[in-house]
Structures are given as C-alpha cells and as structure tokens.
C-alpha cells in the first residue's frame, strides 16, 4: 500500500467514525450563533423555563471562603440521587451557593442560602437547543469517571482528526494538478480573510 492510498483511507474511515460528532458540532453551533432568535422563539411560548421541585431546610455545614466548592455540592447531588451526573458549584453571592447538575437530557439548579440553611431545587424544561449546546460545551478530563473521560478523549480525537483532514485534504488536492489553480484561490482567500479578521476584529 502506498502513502496516497493510506492517506485516502485514513481520511475516509476517520471521517465516517467521527461523523456523529462532526454533525453534532455543526448543528449545535446554530443555536450558539443565533441565540437571540432561539430565546425569542422560546419566550413567545410563554412557558416557564424552570420548575421548582424542592424548597426546604438543608444543612451543608460550615461554608468557608477558602473551602472546596465542588465538595460542598456532594451531599446535595447524593441526596437527590444525581451523583451520576456532572455538576458545578458556584458562589452566587456572600450568602448563596448555586449548584448546577447537568446531563444532556436534564438540568437541575440548586440554590443554597447559607444564612437560612435552606435549599431550593429547580428542573429546567427540556429544549432541543439546550440538548445540542450542552453536548457542544461538554468537555474536559476533570470529572474522572469512565464515560466522562471517554467523551473527552473523543473530543481530542475530533480535534486531531480535523487537523488530519486538513493535512490529508491539502495532500489530496495537491495530487490533482487540474484543481491546483482554483485550490490556490480558495486557500489564499481563506488565509487572507482570516488574517484580516485577526488584525481588525
């Protein structure tokens, strides 16, 4: 097998394997790029986005300025049986901690009021654009659990595949002398416009 053959086959099979991710990143970029349109459309429905499912006493113990916020969220996600989901903990103000629990299908927001030792839980209504943007934004190796890490590894694979498609695409274009002239026009127009954006944007 010669290099051009290996190059074409790698380009093809890598592309086929990663097709769902490429399509997902493409389609999910639409609600990111046109966020105002989707928000207006949803607002027109007149249906609340969040539904309160819990409001009651809850004691997280002493909350210090320097302590790990992530650890503070643990008893809450455990209590609500959401420990399989990924979550983030944020200090909303001196007296409030917010915990966001997210899966591709469901999002729950907890608000812990430190002074009152009170917790509220709200579920977010399912929206397809949230499903897509949630997938798009998911990444990182911080969680450490198997499927979360596998998703992050696949994101790396998609990144490396894009670089490989660019390199192998350029190689295949160069192997077709009949397309060189128009190829140059396309490549230079792309590099030129991107450079202008870099300089002026």
């Amino acid at each position: 097998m010669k290099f051009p053959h290996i190059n074409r086959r790698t380009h093809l099979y890598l592309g086929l394997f990663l097709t769902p991710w490429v399509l997902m990143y493409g389609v999910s970029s639409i609600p990111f790029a046109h966020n105002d349109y989707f928000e207006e459309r949803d607002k027109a429905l007149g249906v609340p986005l969040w539904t309160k499912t819990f409001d009651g006493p809850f004691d997280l113990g002493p909350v210090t300025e320097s302590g790990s916020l992530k650890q503070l969220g643990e008893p809450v996600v455990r209590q609500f049986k959401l420990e399989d989901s990924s979550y983030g903990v944020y200090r909303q103000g001196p007296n409030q901690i917010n915990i966001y629990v997210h899966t591709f299908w469901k999002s729950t927001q907890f608000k812990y009021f430190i002074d009152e030792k009170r917790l509220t839980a709200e579920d977010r209504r399912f929206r397809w654009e949230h499903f897509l943007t949630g997938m798009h934004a998911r990444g990182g190796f911080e969680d450490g659990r198997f499927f979360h890490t596998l998703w992050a590894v696949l994101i790396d694979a998609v990144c490396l595949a894009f670089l490989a498609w660019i390199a192998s695409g350029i190689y295949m274009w160069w192997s077709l002398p009949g397309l060189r002239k128009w190829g140059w026009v396309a490549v230079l127009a792309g590099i030129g416009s991107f450079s202008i954006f870099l300089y002026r944007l």
Partner: protein
Amino acid sequence: MYAVSTFVMNHRRLFHGPPPEPPPQYEVERELVYPGEMPEGATPQQVALQLLATLDLDGAHAVARPFTAERVVVNRQDAISPRRITYTAADKKVRVEKMIFSGAGFFERMHRRRGYQHNYVLDDLWAISVDVTIVALILLALSGIWMWWELRVTRRLGALALGAGIGLFCLLAAVL
C-alpha cells in the same frame, strides 16, 4: 482555529492551571484626562461610545455591570489585544488597559466570538463566516457519506466505522 481552540478548552487544567482560574491580566497602556465633555445625563452606553470614538478604539464592546454614570468600565473586544477602558466622571480620568496576551485565551476568544449583536460590519462578516463554517461542516459530513457510498470497495469497512461511531455516540448520549 476551532480544532486547536477545542483542544485547549478540553485541557483547561493543562493550559490554565488548576481551578479556580485566575482572571485575565491587564497592563496599563495609557492614562489621560478626558479632553471633551460628556453630554448631560448620558447613559453608560452613550459614554462608552463617545469614549471609544475619542480614543480611536471604536468597535465591538460591552459595558461592564453595574451600570453607573460615575464610573463606566468598557470591555473592548479584540482578537489579539482586548482592552478595558475605565472612565471616572468626577475627575474625567480615563485609563486604558490592554490584556496581557495568552495563547489559550486568544484561542478561546476566537472560538466563542459569534453572533450579529454588534453594530459593526466586520463583526457581522465574522458572524457570516461562522454561519458558512457551520453549513460547511454539515455539508462535509453529508458529502463524505455520499462519497463513501459511491466507492463500492470501501462499503463494508466504511459501514463498520460509521456504525461504530453512531453506536458509541448514542451510548454516550444516553449515559452522559
């Protein structure tokens, strides 16, 4: 750009260090006393526009909260060197700070820049280029499938690769 920036964001700890991430660092570029007059009762947004025009920095920007007439902070977007401009009404002082360049920050900014919300032609052109990229991405995937189907010799292995990809994607979509 999107491939490299996604890699950077997927390895946040490697490029930014352990959480919490420090805020971006700025260095003072210039300080001056505003030479003109702000209109009576100008909103922070109007002050920001006048400031940017005077400083020859007109372009995509956002006024930082809280909005007060006494102190207006404008974050001027820029691919390479974003700036923070602080105007204090009492003494008419203007401080222009430039963000210290970081490769990871640059890629993240480029990745996240999108939308038609700014009143500047160049930003609209960038938003159009993002839309073109989206359409191209979807077309590349679909045309790739069509081209594979046209090559009889690769059908079996190709189906295996596509099936494995779809299967793994569905599994992860179900469990994550």
